[in-house]
């Protein structure tokens, strides 16, 4: 009786073994073949550790990853891979993972990763790092810090906004009061003031009062309007609607996705109200809202990451600081879905040339406040 039962069970033996072996078998067999991948590492490997946004955040992390992909397109010997951090606890293990995989260059994204990058760079002096948008706390020679003088691009944005406003006022606000945010706002206000001075206009700039002195990538003080985070779109909508009520018709949100709240406010307020997008070309990253954008002030994360990888692949890596400017496309302004007259575009080109050759200052304190 017992034996009959046993034989009945045995019928299913093959099926169970088959199912298990598909998984466990491939596992054990292929573990043995692991040595192959370790030896075939003649290529240059570029590795990106993204922040919690991941490679599809349509912003910073996406740009850094795009920069890596661009580098691969140019130099076929470069292989790329990325790890996204699910939280700040992942920074260290992700960086370690790539150190272990002998990446030629590890690109970390954002100033929140400063500490993890600094620690790792001090512990592994032969490992090359590049960190996007951060002035690193370490002075290790194996870290290249990619920084962007976004006030130059924002200056053009402010000029464009001042030249385009019908109501005589424009506004700006930030996510949180970091130098990387306020630098944009500072440049924007400077652009508006420069427009007033040179064109004899009196366009008001709401939302940012620069402190005296000069702004730099590390420090940019003043008082202004801030959401307190980079995610609350409702707050962005409220602030923008407030700016519209105060007489502005163009708003420049420097707050990541909070800016989508500004877009909603502009759409609600109707024709004549528009938004200046930040960091990326809004008509590419958020194409569906292109008709609401007067333009975008960009941060050239892609070209800088691409160039950092390409030069590291050539063995020409230099630690220190890369500064993105108008000249090297590290920042700039692009036009949006709203038509800008050719005369304004011509003036903007002249201003850009002036900033590039240093004849036009981007410090708002050099111009009278309106």
């Amino acid at each position, binding site marked *: 009786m017992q034996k009959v039962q046993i034989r009945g069970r045995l019928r299913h033996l093959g099926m169970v073994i088959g199912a298990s072996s598909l998984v466990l078998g491939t596992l054990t067999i*292929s573990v043995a073949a692991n040595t192959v991948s370790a030896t075939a590492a003649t290529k240059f490997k570029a590795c990106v550790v993204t922040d919690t946004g991941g490679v599809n955040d349509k912003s910073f992390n996406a740009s850094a990853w795009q920069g890596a992909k661009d580098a691969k397109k140019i130099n076929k010997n470069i292989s790329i891979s990325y790890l996204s951090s699910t939280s700040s606890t992942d920074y260290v293990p992700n960086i370690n993972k790539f150190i272990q995989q002998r990446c030629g260059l590890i690109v970390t994204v954002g100033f929140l990763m400063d500490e993890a990058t600094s620690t790792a760079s001090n512990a592994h002096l032969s490992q090359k790092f590049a960190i996007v948008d951060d002035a690193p706390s370490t002075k290790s020679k194996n870290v290249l810090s990619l920084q962007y003088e976004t006030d130059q691009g924002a200056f053009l944005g402010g000029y464009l906004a001042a030249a385009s406003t019908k109501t005589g006022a424009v506004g700006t606000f930030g996510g949180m009061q970091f130098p990387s945010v306020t630098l944009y706002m500072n440049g924007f206000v400077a652009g508006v003031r420069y427009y007033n001075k040179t064109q004899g206009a009196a366009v008001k700039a709401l939302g940012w009062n620069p402190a005296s002195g000069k702004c730099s990538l590390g420090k940019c003080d003043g008082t202004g309007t801030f959401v307190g985070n980079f995610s609350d779109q409702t707050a962005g909508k409220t602030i923008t609607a407030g700016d519209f009520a105060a007489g502005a018709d163009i708003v420049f949100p420097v707050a990541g996705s909070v800016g989508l709240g500004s877009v909603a406010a502009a759409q609600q307020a109707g024709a004549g109200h528009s938004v200046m997008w930040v960091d990326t070309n809004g008509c590419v990253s958020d194409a569906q809202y292109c008709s609401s954008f007067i333009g975008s002030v960009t941060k050239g994360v892609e070209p800088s990451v691409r160039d950092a990888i390409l030069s590291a692949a050539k063995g020409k890596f230099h630690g220190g600081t890369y500064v993105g400017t108008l000249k090297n496309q590290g920042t700039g302004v692009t036009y949006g879905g709203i038509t800008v007259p050719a005369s304004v575009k011509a003036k903007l080109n002249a201003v850009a040339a002036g900033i590039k050759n240093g004849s036009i200052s981007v410090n708002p304190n050099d111009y009278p406040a309106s």
Partner: protein
Amino acid sequence: MPRAFTQFANAWVRLTSKSPIVVTFFAIVLGLLIGALIIITTTPAVLVSWRGLFHSWGGLGHALKVTFDNVGSAYRDMFSGSVVNPPEFWHALTTGKNWNQALTPISETLTYATPLIIASIGVGLAFQTGIFNIGANGQAILGGIAGASVATLIHLPMILHLPLTMLAGIAGGMIAGSIPGLLKAFTGAHEVIVTLMLNYVVALFLIFSLLSTALQRPNQSNDISRNFDPSAQLAPLFGTASGLRVSWGIFIALAVVVFAWWFLDRSSLGFDFRVTGANPNAARASGINAKAVIVMVFLLSGGLAGLAGVVQASSTTHLIDGGFLIGNAGIGFTAITVALLGRNRPMGILWASLLFAALGVGGRAMQASTGIPLDLATVIQSAIVLFVATPVLVKEIFRLHTAQTGAVQLATKGWSS
């Protein structure tokens, strides 16, 4: 020969019995199978190779090879990234060099498992008493906040500072746990609702406290605490220079496992807990103070969750920030599934935590070298839990029969309690 065959068949019968361990094993196999299926259907190279079959059947061998190569390399990376990389291990064994590199995968797995074990034991203890503690994550966060306060604001020698930091974490978790405990005991408020909602309260309190002058790092405007004093950090087991992150916290986790086993199986209070979980009416009739038990369970469960939070901060990041245990990093939520997978038994939870940590760590290695997203590990984890929660399904798929020994049943009654 026939005798050997009978012995083998008997072993096979034991193997295919419906005991929880066997069901769990087959659930893991099924989870990995589903993972393989997803790799096959989402990897372009594999799909392209199968598309070749529309033109000629000659491509079958090639398609199979590409499929096995891709699935194989994904699982190989997962294994060698989380347990051991055989060539590296062999190299270390034969030459005595690069031991650190050979031990890194298992060290990472243990690092991730450490807080998970503690939090899951906390959740499992509550489950055993018939109580759903969905608030372990909030309790862990509050434990982290309390621990960070002691670790950054008070300066003491390590012999006092470290224990005090851990105790602060436990106290923080107990405070968060006492709220739903008292509410359930004295007003009958359902613990699922209260604990779930408290998670949001605590998450916002985290931001609030990190932006307060007391905890916020000086000269910084974002939500990040100071670094823990070195005297309040759980040091790496093999020293900082080794690069291995596994810390002394693993011994805290093991101590918690032993404590939980002793508590449930050997202590009289633990007996009261289990009786209450198995049959609240019988417990009340036999003179067990139900209200006291409910409050005690929440204190214990919350305290362990709080300990998990502070161990996490003290052993890995040495600080807490606005993303501390938020979102995907929420070990308190993972702990619920781990406790379920471990059938609320201390040893089961220990193994389940190691499995989940290995899948997470291995998933990272897989993403780094094959580009298959880390999320696949989450899918596999979820699939395993799904199959464990539906033993009937596993039983039918593998035609398992009823074991001679009684199967362990979940004590939790859920909404009916």
